[in-house]
């Protein structure tokens, strides 16, 4: 791909959803965009690229952005985060939420749904301890195609084996055919998938006790990262938790959070009110 064409796609992605496409990721473009070109009847990728210099169809722009924004995901990845959820965060609410038995969780940038369903399975696995607690898991992404896949709850043989222990496969999935598995209806019902662009105003979103936004912020420019994170933190109650990627450096974008010792990637509000010492 020519540098000028890469820059055109890169600026389209940034304008539409704030995501930054680094030159190192340019190798992804051909494989992701060729199916879009084929769908829209362009004989080659350069032919489709040409139309972007004019006034392209909004639906074409949407398909291009979705194709470029898609990220790979796996179940229980990394397992340490889900151990933290199961052994530290959820037990905190077992003890501390006698009055409010509603627990809202947001999987922001949910891709094909593996993160949201991993959260649901983690909760189901300790359902006895959470009896009487109403759980709502909202999972959002900017790609309607990937959201349709997530909503279907079906995964092929490669996807289903990536991160999911076989005991959990048997417990939470049903075989559809020789190569496809579907999440069981009871677990599927725990998650609600919806389109949401993180650049948008978040005023209409509810309060979330736990937010998962792992490895999403680094896809934005620094300034946008800070704005998006700040808006998200306004949705957290005073004893809420947020999971970010364990390797994300948040010092440059916020001073509102404190890292939780021994749980890399888990943060609490600096000015929050928790029933444990914040140190």
């Amino acid at each position, binding site marked *: 791909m020519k540098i000028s064409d890469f820059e055109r796609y890169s600026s389209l992605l940034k304008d539409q959803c704030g995501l930054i496409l680094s030159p190192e990721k340019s190798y992804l473009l051909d494989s992701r965009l060729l199916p879009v070109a084929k769908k829209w009847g362009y004989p080659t990728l350069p032919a489709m690229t040409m139309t972007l210099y004019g006034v392209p169809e909004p639906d074409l722009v949407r398909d291009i952005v979705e194709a470029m924004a898609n990220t790979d995901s796996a179940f229980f990845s990394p397992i340490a985060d889900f151990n933290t959820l199961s052994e530290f965060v959820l037990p905190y609410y077992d003890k501390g939420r006698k009055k409010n038995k509603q627990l809202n969780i947001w999987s922001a940038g949910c891709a094909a749904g593996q993160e949201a369903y991993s959260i649901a399975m983690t909760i189901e696995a300790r359902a006895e301890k959470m009896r009487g607690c109403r759980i709502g898991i909202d999972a959002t992404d900017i790609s309607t195609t990937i959201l349709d896949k997530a909503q279907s709850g079906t995964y092929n043989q490669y996807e289903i084996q990536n*991160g999911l222990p*076989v005991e959990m496969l048997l417990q939470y999935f049903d075989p559809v055919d020789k190569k496809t598995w579907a999440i069981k209806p009871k677990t599927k019902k725990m998650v609600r998938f919806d389109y949401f662009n993180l650049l948008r105003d978040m005023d209409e979103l509810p309060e979330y006790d736990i937010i998962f936004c792992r490895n999403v912020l680094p896809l934005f420019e620094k300034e946008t990262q800070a704005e998006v994170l700040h808006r998200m933190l306004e949705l957290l109650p005073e004893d809420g938790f947020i999971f970010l990627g364990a390797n994300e450096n948040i010092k440059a974008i916020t001073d509102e959070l404190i890292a939780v010792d021994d749980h890399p990637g888990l943060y609490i509000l600096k000015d929050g009110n928790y029933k444990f010492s914040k140190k």
Partner: protein
Amino acid sequence: MVEKTLFRANERISILMKTCMIVDDSRVVRKVAARIISDMGFDCTEVEDGQRAFDACTESMPDAILLDWNMPVMSGIEFLEKLRMLEGGDKPKVLLCTTENDTGHIKRAMNAGADEYVMKPFNSDIIESKFKQIGLL
């Protein structure tokens, strides 16, 4: 002098490395699996049927076994049941690896003592993910 030093270095590496036995009657599958698992830092040996695998285990137990189900002479399930009855046979982590992907086969494998189940075809991400799940990585 150089050869002796190299020999010592290799000997030291093989003692420190975890071992994995790949049991499959397909040479191609063995080679592909061996390449993936070696890249994860394991010292791999390849065996073509359950009986030979069992004989090898009576000599020395590996840390991990990637085990095919359908093989001549002795099937993967027969091998696994016999292995778990051997002294020290509870030690290796066994991943049963097969094209059989219905729940009945998976449950049978787990009941026979498999630690994980890999549906063929697999790739390096799947093998690495399964090894992590059972504490081999």
